[in-house]
């Protein structure tokens, strides 16, 4: 396979990138100054080498524990459970949350072969043994996100002294946390209710 073909194939593996777009991106990279293209390739190398899942919360970060888990100003007694690490960025945008996170690494979806064992749940249970006051289930308002929240609620509801809440349904139906704007997310947090 030629070098160009190789690059097009690799770019085409990215989500939302079809063959045509991959071609366009590849030829764009060939036309940019070599220094700029190298920067991209170095950035990719760096994330692969340096970014790992935080051993406490599962967030993707180049430090372990991650910047949220190690921030003493954040309230470690309030846990916000999200599907993906990218959801954290969205919640942070709202500026309305100063607790810590827990990343599940997905959602229940039997059709995609995703069951409870494929989610970061054991670590969550361990964390809940030490002084957590509230768990906010912030999975997406999709069919799968709702089922995941219901499942976790049933698993956690008998824990003493832990309040379990769910984000208010201000989010657009089927809309992912990732794509909601800051104000909408802030409202969803403020209006959260006990499950």
């Amino acid at each position, binding site marked *: 396979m030629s070098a160009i073909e190789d690059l097009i194939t690799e770019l085409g593996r990215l989500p939302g990138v079809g063959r045509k777009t991959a071609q366009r991106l590849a030829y764009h990279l060939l036309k940019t100054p070599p220094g700029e293209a190298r920067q991209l390739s170095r950035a990719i190398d760096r994330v692969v080498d340096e970014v790992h899942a935080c051993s406490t919360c599962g967030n993707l970060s180049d430090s372990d524990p991650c910047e949220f888990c190690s921030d003493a100003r954040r309230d470690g007694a309030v846990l916000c459970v999200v599907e993906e690490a990218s959801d954290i960025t969205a919640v942070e945008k709202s500026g309305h949350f100063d607790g810590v996170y827990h990343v599940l690494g997905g959602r*229940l979806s*039997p*059709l995609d072969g995703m069951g409870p064992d494929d989610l970061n749940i054991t670590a969550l249970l361990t964390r809940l043994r030490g002084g957590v006051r509230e768990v906010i289930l912030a999975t997406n308002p999709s*069919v799968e996100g*709702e*089922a995941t929240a*219901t*499942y976790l609620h049933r698993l956690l509801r008998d824990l003493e002294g832990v309040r379990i809440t769910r984000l208010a349904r201000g989010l657009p*139906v089927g809309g992912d946390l990732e794509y909601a704007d800051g104000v909408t997310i802030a409202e969803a947090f403020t209006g959260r209710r006990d499950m």
Partner: protein
Amino acid sequence: MPHSASAHPSPQASGPEPATGAVRLGRIRLRDFRNFERLECELPAEGVMILGSNGAGKTNLLEAVYYLEVFRSFRGASDRELVRFGQEVFRVEATVEGPRGERTIAAAYSAAERRKQVEVDRREVSRLSDAIGGLGAVVFSLEDVEIVRGSPSGRRRFMDILLSLVEPGYVDALGKYRSVLSQRNEALKGGADRAQLEAWSAGLIEVGARVMEARARWVAGRAAAFDHYHSRIAGGARGVLGYRPSLGAPAGRAAAASDDEASAEGRPPSRAAWAEAFRAALERTRERERRRGVTVVGPHRDELAFTAQVGGEEERDLRTYGSGGQQRTAALALRLAEADTLRERLGREPVYLLDDVFAELDRERSGRLLQLLEEGRSGQVVLTSPKPSEVRLRGGLDVWRLRDGRLES
């Protein structure tokens, strides 16, 4: 008449209330739809009778018009099948004067891109559910008899299409129900534990209750009208339309609403009652669904039952025991009840698309149907027929001829 109008307390039972106005289809434009390469016409306000031999495309024309109501074929054809042979894209467009003033509704489908595009007043709508029901039309077709005598899925399809048109939120609830159901079935197949199944059950119950409540409410609300139309067309025999939810009706109330029961039992069950009944049914069928690897109760297994007096005094299931004529009668009564539902939602008469409906009726039934379509109904009519007929609607409709995908007036 074996019973007087006073036996039916519901206002629908004495025929429709006169509507204040009617939806009027104006200009229709087709491009590469079925056998039509290009077609453009302006419908008269009262409607038109379209004559054409079999294969000339009469049904195709009605299919195109009704496409703008539900954005799929009423004959169950895929979008791809609607594209004219050898072409890639079809387009259907119509101007319609309805409750929201004059609007242009258009739909196009590209087979190559597998993409459907719907426009209202030249602006693309992003959610199909926002445009659904924007036309305000009802189709009567010869294939309607299959609703009565065919498989249960056809009867659920009838309810789902109608409720999608008139019940806000129904389309979304149904779509969600299907997603949760397939996830839950996959979980069952994979031997998921009880906690996981219950997580899926919660969503299933929530949207499933919404679907069942809407279905039950519609049937209960239209049972008297159905009975009325049925006995009018049949020349006496009473007809009963009943909702048969797979999980049984919530405690203490009958879901099958013949008018006597409806008045005795009061209003149909609430959504909360349906949710509770669904929860209990899932609990009851736990062993069975685990063995079979599939959810065995729920709206996806619901039935609509048509019963009538057949041959004597006893009421029997028309699907099994009805003759062709009796099944046709029930199907017509159902469509008339549908038209009433649309009228109520629109606040005016829907357009009546009548696909050769008089062909397979005997003289008496044909005459009585004609009477029902005239009494208190002023909606525009598009009637197709293979040959000139003595059917006179709306004081005599203009006659157009359809030949090889072309209209001649």
